């Protein structure tokens, strides 16, 4: 029994990290309907920036905040260079140019920080905590708490502020929103920036939990975030959160039952099955298809 509870806690810890990464991803996805391959690469660079700042001796909280800001800036740059010029063409085109931008970011990161996997300092105490006879890592509990707080904050921002409501308008109908006088370009840039900011926060937690920053995080994070966002339902914050948690649990279940070599395949297969039964994701509202 303990074993299963322990695995459950593993799954939740990984899942809450996926949730944070998926959050920023879902935001861009829901508003621009864009499979943003650059997202993972942006937050990978953000995690490297955080590491560099920490190594330069800057205290943890400002360092991570600055790294998140750097992530927001890079995301804005990607929007300006690789997204805006091709916004009006076939929607696969921005996807491809985002992928190209991701390759540039990956090459830049390798040039600056080298190809090795870097260890990330442990800022959150890593002690085994016993709750009711189950050993949990203190880190996973804190990560869960942080991601809950960030998800709640982002959700409040999108649903309760003027900006958030404007962003939702853009999400529903870009052209109409523009006609209504909403500064669409500004909103899109801001959405990218928030996505990058939250994503880097997730990536730093990822780096802390796994104790590693590495270039391949880029594609890895994109596919995981996308899968989590699809599972939860695009455009829904709580959906992205639960999608992330469920993805983490599905992966753990895959390791337990089929073996860790089957992790990605089994967890993706679970998502596919869920989506076959609930095409809009677990928490998404049904919407008409947009081209």
């Amino acid at each position, binding site marked *: 029994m303990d074993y299963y509870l322990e695995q459950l806690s593993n799954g939740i810890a990984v899942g809450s990290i996926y949730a944070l990464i998926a959050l920023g991803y879902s935001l861009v996805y829901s508003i621009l309907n864009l*499979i943003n*391959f650059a997202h993972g690469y942006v937050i990978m660079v953000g995690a490297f920036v955080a590491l560099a700042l920490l190594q330069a001796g800057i205290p943890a909280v400002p360092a991570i905040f600055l790294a998140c800001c750097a992530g927001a800036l890079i995301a804005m740059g990607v929007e300006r*260079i*690789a997204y805006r*010029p*091709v916004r*009006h*063409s*076939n929607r*696969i*085109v921005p996807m*491809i*140019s985002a*992928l*190209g*931008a*991701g*390759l*540039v*970011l*990956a*090459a*830049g990161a*390798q*040039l600056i920080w080298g190809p090795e996997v870097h260890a990330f300092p442990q800022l959150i105490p890593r002690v085994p905590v016993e709750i009711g006879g189950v050993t949990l890592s203190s880190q996973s509990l804190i990560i869960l708490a942080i991601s809950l707080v960030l998800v709640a904050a982002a959700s409040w921002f999108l649903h309760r502020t003027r900006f958030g409501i404007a962003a939702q308008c853009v999400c529903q109908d870009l052209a109409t929103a523009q006609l209504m006088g909403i500064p669409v370009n500004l909103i899109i840039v801001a959405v990218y920036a928030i996505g990058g900011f939250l994503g880097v926060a997730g990536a730093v937690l990822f780096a802390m939990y796994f104790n590693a920053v590495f270039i391949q995080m880029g*594609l890895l994070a994109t*596919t995981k975030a*996308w*899968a989590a966002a*699809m599972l939860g339902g695009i455009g829904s914050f709580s959906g992205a959160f639960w999608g992330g948690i469920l993805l983490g649990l599905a992966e753990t279940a895959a390791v337990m039952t089929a073996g860790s*070599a*089957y992790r*990605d*395949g089994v967890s*993706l*297969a679970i*998502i*596919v099955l869920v*989506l*076959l039964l609930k*095409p*809009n994701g677990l928490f998404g509202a049904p919407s008409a*298809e947009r081209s």
Partner: protein
Amino acid sequence: MAMTETFRMPVTVKFGPWIFLILMACLPLVLPGRFWLHIFSLTMIYAIFVLGQNVVTGWAGMLTLGQAAFVGMGAYSSVLLTMQAGVPWPLAFLASGAICAASGAALALPCLRVKADFLSLVTIAFNQIFFMVANNWMELTRGPMGIPGVPSMQILGWKARSSADQFWLILGVAAILFLLVARLMHGQLGRTMKMIRDDEVAAGALGVNVTGYKVLAFAIGCGVCGLGGSLYGHYMRFVSPDMFKLEESLLIMQMAILGGLASMPGCALGAFLMIMIPEALRSSEPWLITIRPGVAGATLVALMIWRPNGLLGFGQMPRSIRRLLRLEKEARP
């Protein structure tokens, strides 16, 4: 290859592909050494993959991101059939196409009632699952060790031994596939697919069996990839799971977009550029080696901004060239 939909083809379009084919066939006689021959052989094989992707994405308008899985499935089927079961290569080649077409159709069927992006996620999942199976089914695929010593293509006792032989064989297969697909896509089938792509609801209202055509597009696209995969496996004379990873699918997609969706010559041009650009940037200077994939990525972004519908996508050619090719009167799709 023809790029217009009119029934009376302009002269340039009618004879262009044949002139191109003859010029290509002369390449082994003029190219120095085997490296360039290899690059062109590789380009043609990838052009076949892109053609498969294009049938699904360009003509039928479905976004798939897992074509490498079908390429891999074709390569593995063909290699295993020839090496384990002793099937002659031409038969194994056709069989690998059939296997991929069938599994493509089987994959598409349940997914089509769901949202468009779901299909891309499913195909990514399929790619991961294919990789996983190829990596773990040791008895069949030898797992991550890969299968070395794959025999070269062989037709009735004639074996493609030299690079030039392989080049000509691949050119022949590619030409046949391109002509076949061009026939299909410029005929009733292709026009129906385009109609579904452009307005699914209207097509359905006109009594078109939308799902049926989509599944058919999937079967053709995946079948073409499977045939290309067979060529790839026997040309490389080695297959291993890491040749068919998700990155490879993304590369095929990049080629298709760069060349221009639903464009026959675009398939070849996209494949050529995405193979040539990294090859041209190859150098021995360590920092240049490091940024090589990044420069390739930046070139891709720049080309996409310059020609958002792909280099040879419709409405993307400069007026002068269109007039030269007598395509000027064409309406944009």
